[in-house]
Structures are given as structure tokens and as C-alpha cells.
């Protein structure tokens, strides 16, 4: 077996071992996908292999899901508002149609933003993809060689209950990207599950890269 291939297999096995049960079933909807099949990204090199794909914990969707769940029932109580009492039945139907379409739009948009806001750890680089809203995207890419410190923080009740936290990876570069204005680093993975294990995984890959460079 060629040495480079053996190294990749070993790294992904190590990652799987570290993440344990958190590896999920390989579904793209889970928060961790180790060695995802048939996944590629925009700036991927030909020989580059994706070791880990991750995104925010599903519990982060609870806010907008609750809002949508409540909003679905609002049209049932429109008769209670004097504002709507003066409207004709046809106009009320139009308002109801608009309400449900807007709700669907809001739900689809939030699902897409959650699904595509990911971080990708490859055998060569770290990629952070941030979409905020319909018209803005920020993609940060850094070589594993340029990564310096990896740390994580957990604050609040929800973080403690679901074991979620924010991982911050410091790079050698001090360049500030638009998404990093309120963050410590451009590589900030917010509200991800098991931040301790993700920190371990990134640290391991940085160590492996350093060892390889020394050879």
C-alpha cells in the first residue's frame, strides 16, 4: 500500500476512534460526517481527501422551528383581531396564502443556511464555509501548517445539556475577514456538538502535519 494512502486511512481511522458514537450513520444531515463519500468542495485539490465534515448542532434550529410551529396556527385566530374583521373573505384568503408562503420561505431558508454552513477538515487544510442570509457567503481556507492554537468554549445551560460549544482555531495570518468582525478568528465553528473532540481531532491533524514536515 502506498505510504500516502496508508497515512490517510490511518488519520480517518484515528478520527473515527476519537469521535466514537458521534460519527453518526454517515448521513449528510448529521452534525459529524467522517470520511464523507461523494462530497467535494469548491477549492478542493485533486489529491485532497475530506476527513471530517461538521456543522452546528440540530438544537440550534430550535428557535426558528418553535417560531414556525406557533406561526402555523396564527391564521386560526385572525377572527379575534378587529383589524381583520373588516376584510372580505377573498382578501382574508389572500392574506392567509401570503402568510403560509412566507412561513415556508423562512423555514426553507433557515434549513438551507444550517445545512450549508459547514466546516471541513481535510488531510491538507481547514475550510470554514459561512453563509449568512441570501446574498452573503464567506469561505475561509487555511493549510494545516498555518494553524496555531485550537481552543473551545462552552457557555450557558443549553451548551452544557447538549454538550455543544464553539471551537476557535487561530491561524498564523492576522487577516480579518468580514465574518470575523465579532469573532476571535475567521475559523470559528459555532455551536458544534462535542467541541472537545473536534478540538482533539484538529490538534491531532496539526501534530501529524508537523511530524511529516520534520521528516
Amino acid at each position: 500500500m502506498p505510504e500516502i494512502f496508508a497515512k490517510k486511512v490511518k488519520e480517518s481511522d484515528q478520527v473515527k476512534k476519537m469521535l466514537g458514537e458521534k460519527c453518526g450513520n454517515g448521513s449528510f444531515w448529521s452534525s459529524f460526517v467522517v470520511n464523507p463519500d461523494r462530497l467535494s468542495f469548491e477549492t478542493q485539490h485533486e489529491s485532497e481527501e475530506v476527513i471530517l465534515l461538521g456543522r452546528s448542532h440540530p438544537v440550534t434550529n430550535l428557535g426558528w422551528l418553535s417560531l414556525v410551529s406557533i406561526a402555523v396556527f396564527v391564521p386560526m385566530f385572525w377572527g379575534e383581531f378587529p383589524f381583520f374583521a373588516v376584510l372580505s373573505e377573498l382578501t382574508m384568503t389572500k392574506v392567509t396564502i401570503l402568510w403560509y408562503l412566507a412561513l415556508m420561505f423562512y423555514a426553507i431558508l433557515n434549513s438551507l443556511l444550517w445545512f450549508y454552513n459547514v466546516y471541513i477538515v481535510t488531510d491538507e487544510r481547514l475550510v470554514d464555509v459561512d453563509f449568512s442570509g441570501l446574498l452573503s457567503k464567506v469561505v475561509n481556507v487555511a493549510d494545516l501548517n498555518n494553524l496555531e492554537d485550537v481552543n473551545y468554549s462552552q457557555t450557558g445551560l443549553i451548551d452544557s445539556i447538549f454538550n455543544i460549544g464553539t471551537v476557535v482555531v487561530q491561524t498564523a495570518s492576522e487577516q480579518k475577514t468580514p465574518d470575523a468582525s465579532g469573532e476571535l478568528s475567521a475559523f470559528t465553528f459555532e455551536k458544534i456538538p462535542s467541541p472537545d473532540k473536534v478540538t482533539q481531532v484538529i490538534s491531532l491533524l496539526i501534530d501529524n502535519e508537523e511530524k511529516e514536515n520534520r521528516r
Partner: protein
Amino acid sequence: MEELIGFNITFDLVVSLLVKVSLILLSILSLIMVRQTGLMNRVVNYPIGGSLKALVWGFAFTCLLITVIVVLV
């Protein structure tokens, strides 16, 4: 209500007009979402990206169809 150049403006009419304008804006936004989904899938290319695009196209098409019907009614 108010009569303007022989045209009776009622509260119902104003709300109906606002709903139509909002639906047109929502249709435009849904078309932008279709475009953005394509771009998102180019950045991170998932195998299920095609299904997501189909879902968003379906929503945009439904939105457009309903908008046309509501505007014409």
C-alpha cells in the same frame, strides 16, 4: 371610504394590494433563493444537492403560480 377620481378606495382594497405586492416580492426572493442554492451547492457539493435544488425550484414555482393567480383575481 375615500373616493378618488371616481374610484372608491376601501381598506379591503388597500390590504389586497399590499398582499399582491408582498407576494410578488416573495416570488422574487424565492427565485434569488434558487440561485443561491445553486451557488451554495457549488461551494459544498453534496450528493443530495440536486434534491435540495429541486425542492427550492418546487417552492419557487408554486410561489410564482400562486402569485399569478392572486394578482389576476
